[in-house]
């Protein structure tokens, strides 16, 4: 297993290299010019050109790519065109809010979605099942920003329980940290709760019809034991897969959520960087996200072996 994990980690290097080349090429051919954004709306064409030269954007593609790659190989993600700050420092500054948001959303999602899915499967066809599935369809259909605005209106403006925007680091205390993240996590999690609840239901339904479950029932095992020890463990592979995919999708969802709740995370940084054509920042974030995707996939694969002993690497 250890050698498998090491092999997988090593295999991320060429993947990230290809992603890097792809992203760099894409940005190079994409329309848009950071110098024009920097210079501002009232700048003259000559000013824009001089700024382009100052940033080295007038150099040939291969030289720009080679320079960037050389720095990457030396552990340097480069410097933001706009802020003049190291990209690694900017990412470090922004990663905590995003990881916090994702972690809370994930915990919330699993704690809510899996029991809902199990309950729906156990009571398949009943009003409980129909209610849960109706909720799932409803939650899945609502855009994150609509859920976000409604939550902000109810819990921030009406009840004044929680803030509308911002982020407080964990070092300031657990409650101040959590307070800023509850609404965004609920908004972001609604779609995933719906998704995972539906998958859990489907997977559980399949397992509950298996012979070994009938045998367990025939042996007189309790409902709780059958559901959570026998059935859920065997239904877990697709659920774990969807959770894994969900983590990857959370990164995309975080972009909208961070904008709605003004959380200074990587999602907002990405959008800002794309709109400004801040190439080094975009490239740095894409590399990081690529690595995270690979890591999540690896974790999902490893988890398979824990929930299903038949799977071996």
């Amino acid at each position, binding site marked *: 297993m250890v050698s498998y994990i090491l092999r997988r980690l090593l295999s991320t290097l060429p993947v990230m290299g290809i992603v890097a080349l792809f992203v760099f090429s894409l940005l190079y051919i994409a329309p848009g010019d950071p110098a024009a954004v920097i210079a501002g709306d009232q700048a003259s064409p000559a000013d824009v050109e001089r700024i382009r030269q100052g940033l080295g954007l007038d150099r040939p593609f291969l030289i720009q790519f080679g320079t960037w790659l050389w720095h990457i190989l030396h552990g340097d993600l480069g410097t933001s065109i706009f802020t003049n700050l190291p990209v690694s420092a900017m990412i470090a500054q922004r990663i905590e809010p995003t990881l916090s948001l994702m972690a809370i959303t994930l915990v919330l999602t699993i704690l809510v979605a899996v029991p809902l899915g199990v309950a729906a499967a156990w009571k398949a066809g009943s009003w409980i099942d129909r209610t849960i599935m109706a909720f799932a369809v409803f939650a899945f259909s609502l855009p994150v920003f609509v859920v976000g605005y409604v939550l902000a209106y109810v819990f921030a403006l009406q009840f004044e329980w929680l803030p509308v*925007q911002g982020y407080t680091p964990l070092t300031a205390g657990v409650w101040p940290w959590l307070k800023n993240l509850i609404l965004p996590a609920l908004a972001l999690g609604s779609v995933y709760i719906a998704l995972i609840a539906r998958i859990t239901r489907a997977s559980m339904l399949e397992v509950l019809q298996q012979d070994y479950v009938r045998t367990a029932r025939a042996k007189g095992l309790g409902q709780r034991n059958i559901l959570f020890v026998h059935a859920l463990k065997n239904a877990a592979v697709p659920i774990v897969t969807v959770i894994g995919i969900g983590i990857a999708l959370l990164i995309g969802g975080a972009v909208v959520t961070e904008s709605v709740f*003004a959380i200074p995370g990587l999602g907002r940084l990405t959008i800002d960087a794309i709109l400004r054509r801040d190439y080094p920042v975009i490239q740095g974030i894409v590399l990081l996200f690529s690595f995270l995707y690979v890591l999540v996939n690896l974790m999902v694969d490893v988890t398979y072996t824990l929930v299903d002993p038949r799977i071996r690497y």
Partner: protein
Amino acid sequence: MDRRTVLKGLAGVGSLAATGGLSMPALSQGAAARTLRFVPQANLANFDPIWGTQYVVRNAAALVWDTLYGLDATLQPQRQMVESEEVSDDGLVWTFRLRPGLKFHDGEPVRSKDVVASLARWSARDPMGLMLKAIQNELTAVDDRTFKWSLKAPYPKMLLALGKNSTPCAFIMPERIAQTDPFKQIPEYIGSGPMKFAKGEWVPGAKAVFEKFADYTPRQEKTSWLAGGKQMLVDRIEWVVIPDPATAAAALQNGEVDWWESPITDLVPSLKKNRNINVDIADPLGNIGSFRMNHLHPPFNDVKVRRAVLAALSQEDYMRALVGDDTALWKPLPGFFTPDTPLYTEEGGEILKGKRDLAMAKKLLAESGYSSQPVTCVVAQDQPITKAQGDVTADLLKQIGMNVDFVATDWGTVGSRRAQKTPPGQGGWGMFHTWHAGADCISPAAYNAIRANGDKAWFGWPTSEVVEKEVTAWFDAKNLDEEKAAVKRLNKAAIDDVVYAPTGFFLSYTAWRKNVAGIAKGPLPFFWGVSKTA
């Protein structure tokens, strides 16, 4: 249901709740009343006010860096860092003396050599600075508090150049920083202004923090815009970047922020209903909407086509698209200069007055020989002001029989594409939309958009000898009457040539909580004189 509808609905309901007697104790109001939390118009992504000339950078820079002179509310430059100035009888040698006790945030005194280096960097980027540089003999430090600017020709607008608020302003930096190439970013943010920049707390895209500079010595005069005593009544200012307008409105209603620089007009009615919030016009100098046609290529290289568009355009259509039905927010503008300022004129503006003349537009178009070639109209749809104008223009062009190639993209692309001089079919463009701060359009001093000096002109590259002659006449004017006469002729010539198309004059709001006092109307948010109670 679209996003804007949801946004308006929720903000409106939130406001009703607030006015309905619900107490609104903000979660963070326990924070010190000495901290002012401000939502700026845009993200402060860089902090070199000479290298990058966005308004948001200028606004933040005005806290950190001081200027030699400052423009007051009567549009006159007043002494700020300068104690006195002398000009020789022939107008060629200016000698300035700094006031005593000026200090940079690193504790070093402000010396003439710092001023000289700062002015050298500024004059490489600023239009007025470039004019000064072109006639400069030498700019030297005489002693620690005295410096001299010797010229080859008189430059009567010297004090305006040093005190103007259009970007880039002539901010004074320490010599070691000011020696940075003007086309590269400065590495440190050390000024001698009333607030220090807390670089360690800077989260670009999210937060910028300014702390009171204890050693700042304000002037004794009453404050007025960038002039007078810049008295800081709060210890700390936090700029909180909130990209979503509905979230910013909710944060203001909830007391999480104190002042929102530019609320969008859709949300203003709901903010006005909130008993804890003041809403007022932000800047009486407002903005001038505009679109520019490319004078280099067909069809707009023909003045008849440009006039056809001008004859057909309805400024009311543009203004309603920009600010909705709030008629207090806009007025027609048959000219190029800011209304209610000394040089405002409507000379030659008849084509923009009265009923729109589509028949005349079509006739002019026919006379020009326009043959239905596509007009590439590039629009930045991530900037609501340009997008709204672009939609109106597309409809206008279709009405007069033009073939529109509407390219809706983002500002990063428009900014790049508009710099292309190639024909529209080869990556160039036919027209783009923008707007100009009214503060920049009070005179030809910093008004890039009015210039018509061909290759050196702003995007669109208009050429008009008459326009350029009158710009020079304004710079050479000895008194206000001469200035007014020159600007009248300039306005007429610019309309005749259709240097660009003005789409109207519009204002915007600013909003703040009622426990904040001292907010002044002006072309940028002035933080001196602003106080806050718990």
